[in-house]
């Protein structure tokens, strides 16, 4: 057991945990956050995605020790109903999610991809989003929302 300090959505936090415990359990169980979800525990779906220093990571396999002294951002820290990230605003406008459990993977991955390449083409977006899962089949709506966000950011 060791104490790990990091920030989550701008707030300083500390967690006592074994170094190999995945960050997801620190966020959900120790810190009581709702939004990162357990989907597979294998980095195969994306439901647990958060940003670590602005880069999307799968918190279900990232050891909590790797987050020490770093900046973690969840979808709730990406934007808020009052100050939404353009992707969040586009998601609402397009009514994208169905069950919504997969949403962290898509939004957090797309947000990082658009930061690097705001004008990403359809093919580049599909490539950037490879490996993410959505079981309700909202893929076409996801692409619509990302393109809407791109035009709102342009």
């Amino acid at each position, binding site marked *: 057991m060791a104490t790990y300090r990091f920030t989550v959505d701008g707030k300083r936090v500390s967690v006592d*945990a*074994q170094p190999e*415990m*995945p960050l997801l*359990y620190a966020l*959900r*169980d120790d810190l*009581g956050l*709702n*939004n990162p*979800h*357990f*989907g*597979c*525990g*294998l980095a*195969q*779906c994306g*439901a647990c995605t958060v940003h670590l220093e602005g880069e999307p990571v799968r918190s279900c396999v990232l050891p909590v020790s790797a987050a020490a002294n770093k900046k973690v951002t*969840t*979808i*709730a820290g990406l*934007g*808020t*109903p009052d100050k*939404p990230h353009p992707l*969040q605003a586009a*998601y*609402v406008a397009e*009514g*994208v*999610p*169905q*069950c*919504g*459990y*997969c*949403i*962290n993977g898509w*939004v957090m991955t797309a947000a990082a991809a658009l930061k690097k390449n705001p004008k990403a083409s*359809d093919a580049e*977006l*599909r*490539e950037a*989003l*490879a*490996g*993410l*899962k*959505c*079981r*309700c*089949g*909202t*893929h*076409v*709506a*996801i*692409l619509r929302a990302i393109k809407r966000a791109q035009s709102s950011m342009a």
Partner: protein
Amino acid sequence: MDRREFFKTSGALVVSFAAPSFEVIAQSAGKPALLPGELDSWIAILPNGRVNAFFGKMDMGQGLDVAVAQVVAEELDVGADRVEVVMGDTGTSCNQGGASGSTGVSNGVRLLRRAAAEARRVLVERASEKLGVPAAELKVMDGVVAAGDKKITYAELVGGRYFHHKVEWNKQVGNPMDISVPAKAKAPAEYKVVGKPLPRRDVAWKVFGTDGFVTDVRRPGMLHARVIRPPRAACKVRGIDESSIKAIRGAKVIREKDFVAVVAPKEWDAVRAAQSLKVDWQPMETPFPAMDQLYEHIRGAKVVKRQDEVKKGDVAAAFNAPGVKVVQAEYEWPFQSHASMGPACAVAELKDGSCTVWTGSQKPHFVRDGVARLLGLPEDKVRAIWVTGPGSYGRNDAGDAAMDAAFLARASGKPVRVQGMRADGTAWDPKGPACVHRARAAIDASGKVVAYEFVSKGFSRQHIATNESQPADSLIGQAMGVPPKPNQIFGVPAESYGFENKLLGWETIAQFVDHCSPLRTAHLRDPVGPEIHFGSEQFVDEVARAAGADPVEFRLRYLTDPRHAAVVKAVAEKSGWASLGKGKGIAFADRNGTAVAVVAQVEVDRASGRVWARKLWVAHDCGLIINPEILRTTIEGNVVQGLSRVLFEEVRFDRDSVQSVDWASYPILEMGDAPESIEVTLIDRPEVAPSGAGEPTIRVIPAAVGNAFFDATGVRLRRAPLSPERVKAALAKA
């Protein structure tokens, strides 16, 4: 807006359910019993004039709650934004069957429409007494009943109080539950709110992470649990080495017969304990055939039950008529998994002899019944509360999680949250049934189809029931020795082809293992719809080609129901069928009154075996349309999930266990294979009562892709999925 704000009053009738505390609603004095025959069970007017509609089904992310709000608002003459829909809680709603068979609108909303119309009638009658104006002279505008200067609001009439008004209940429970009332619902011509594209209500909290799923329910003192499913089918426990987890803080084993679980105060410790616990399992001898023998097994297995659902003319004689050309084919469909986005989760708490279960099951009223039976409690001592779960497309693993949580809460004496690991959601969920379809048709010299036969043979779609009301239908019940009683049922193609001599039937076979089988079957989105129509709508294409006819023209020649013909015509027109290039396919089907036709255009990469369904056109007729935008996205989800099922999905197994345990061993469609476009044409028929939209489209996707693949390559693939390996192998042989 708080998504669970409802019926909060300052007086004695306080009923609170503020998100996200998941507090239990207090049953206040004077409230009529929660029975379908009480108007108060369906509609409440709050002191501020807002309306609660209590709904005994629930929305799984396709906006059903918005449809309820629109219809209730329409009948009550209030703005839809004033209507809060309270769903899926056995403490506040009657058992309308949960999410089931795409009946949310057809059955569920029909009842609420009647209740709202009756509430309006009663309110106008009471206003008439108060205002001294005949009811016929009163008009209602946004909750204000008025005639000239005289007016009174709904809130003034009954806000925060109960109607105490009886309605006539048909004494049915579940999907058929209905009421009859003296009030007459509005005619579609008068609709102002129904038909409008109002937005979904659950999008914002999901996008901003401001509220919780069932996985986020937390209770004070709660333990985390993991259930240890056996490594193979139907294993018995010989022994457990509890010392294998003694180093893990607070971890404990809970075992009852062959049901094994671990609990711990911290979730990660429960996960570690589940991974570390040494259980000595006694496996069963090779319960399954080798996977490559699956379809031979089905063909050769003894028929448990046969049913010929459509029998017309003399089929045998017509096949034997001289000079006819006989076309025949067989189609094969594998076991498939719900593979919901997250493994199921449930939380249970026992207090003062009562049990509350928070569940993602789409049928919480049946969860209540099942938990009551499992724990030996009266039904009124169990409350099941549905909270949005990680996806639900039928009887997935959610029911098992709810039963497990309830048992573990009692066994541990603490509130328990249980969630599966990935394999529990993929390997151990109930499966859609594997099946083989035998089809043949006879064509005479003029090209006319004179005989047609389509018979499916496969595992029943209900080796466990469609809901969790009986412990025998849950893994925990079976692990404790309660034998399941499988229902034998399958289905036939839903179409109106007017072939003179026609037989549509099915045969079911026994399941491999009668208890604790990871290949037990139950309902998966559009139960047996994609399975059957993958065969039947490809076969119609094969017959059309044998008769030298265009697949669209052939369908139009034989379809006898004008609504069926209309969707085929519409999709052909919108897709530009006649001039579409190579790689096009059409399929059509009906589902309980909803007609849907789809055209797919695919590209096949011969080198990789990849099939990309690049463009799709859908024509959809479900009668009266309540909300066109939400209907459109619901259809899109069906299209993509259908593509995933036909192109990628197949449960892999060896002689004694399911080998599809995660997304690598059970791949589904990803973004790279998502279509470029899905164009949906909605046919609105205000004069026809609305039927369902949650499932019909998925049943036509597989055959449209199969037909398009044939058009692209000249090769007919009759076994699903059309995975890259299978496509490559088939094209190499061709």
